[in-house]
């Protein structure tokens, strides 16, 4: 049996997630980017407000949880960059059905690390 590449597995699991629960991400927008060895996690409601409570979870390309921390209320949380060789899914969950995620592929991380810091 063909072993699915980890990133493909993550992608398929996300596809299933979006098909099964299309409304879960409603109202919360999550974005993640990389500067050097720092992972920057941004999240906001459609109103522009930044969530004050909640949980940030980071999964690798096998969809295994590799880091979990609480939301700080900052518009951009800076976290140590975990091993990204299989890709990362950055999820912010604030409860009550509000969550969102951003995918960073290995290519995304490589490209962003190569960009000059602004």
């Amino acid at each position: 049996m063909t072993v699915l590449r980890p990133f493909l597995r993550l992608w398929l699991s996300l596809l299933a997630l979006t098909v099964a629960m299309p409304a879960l991400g409603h109202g919360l927008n999550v974005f993640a980017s990389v500067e050097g060895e720092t992972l920057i996690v941004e999240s906001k409601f459609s109103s522009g407000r930044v969530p004050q409570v909640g949980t940030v979870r980071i999964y690798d390309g096998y969809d295994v949880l590799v880091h979990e921390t609480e939301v700080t209320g900052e518009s951009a949380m800076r976290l140590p960059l975990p091993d990204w060789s299989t890709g990362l899914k950055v999820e912010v969950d604030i409860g009550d059905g509000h969550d969102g995620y951003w995918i960073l592929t290995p290519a995304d991380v490589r490209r962003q690390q190569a960009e000059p810091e602004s």
Partner: protein
Amino acid sequence: MTRTLTAVALSIAATTASAHFGMIIPSDAMVEQQGNRVVSLDIAFAHPFEQYGMTLVRPSQFSVIYDGEATDLTDRLETSSYLGSDSFSLEYELTRPGVYLFAMAPEPYWEPAEDAFIIHYTKTYVAAFGDDEGWDAEAGFPTEIMPLTRPFGLWAGNVFQGIVMTDGEPVPYAEVEVEFINTDSAITAPSELMITQTILADANGVFTYAAPRAGWWGFAALSEADYTLTMNGEEKEVELGAVIWVHFESWQ
């Protein structure tokens, strides 16, 4: 002879029954992170309902505005063809969530049939990755339609409202022409009057339109410039258009 006369008649119909529209048509009005993050733009000048292309020379300016910051993309435009006429295209990668406003200030187009120049300031909005912040951003044109309805994520049948602005002020009772991109000429208008629909804004410059079908709809608020341009030594009037393109989605 009959065939020639028919061709001439059709040519006249094509140029008189429909309106000119500056066009910026992205491959997707709402880009999701799971899909292609590169948006492809057709940048053209045409009669969109009748699928009749006109030549667009390189715009004097083409830019993208994101989070209040404008980036000039004029030199990145690639020559292309739209409905058989010269046009431009652009591949643009969206990198962050939010709304990207693509805006074109074209060179004046000489229209001998109207003995006037036409300048259509044209724009469209693309929402990236589920974030709609910035949907009412200004392009900063001399004349511009400011959306009062978020200009994406609309169902066919929804109304679209905008306010016509010139030099920063609403234009009372502005005339707004509306056309649909009638891809593959799928729709047959029962009357020439239905190729280009016309509405007037109210006393506050606000207009409303309910789109009957999914697809791209263009709204052009037309006015006369307070200046002229020279053609063969003669001063000619200039028609200004404030054009916005809005996509309506199928209700299904």
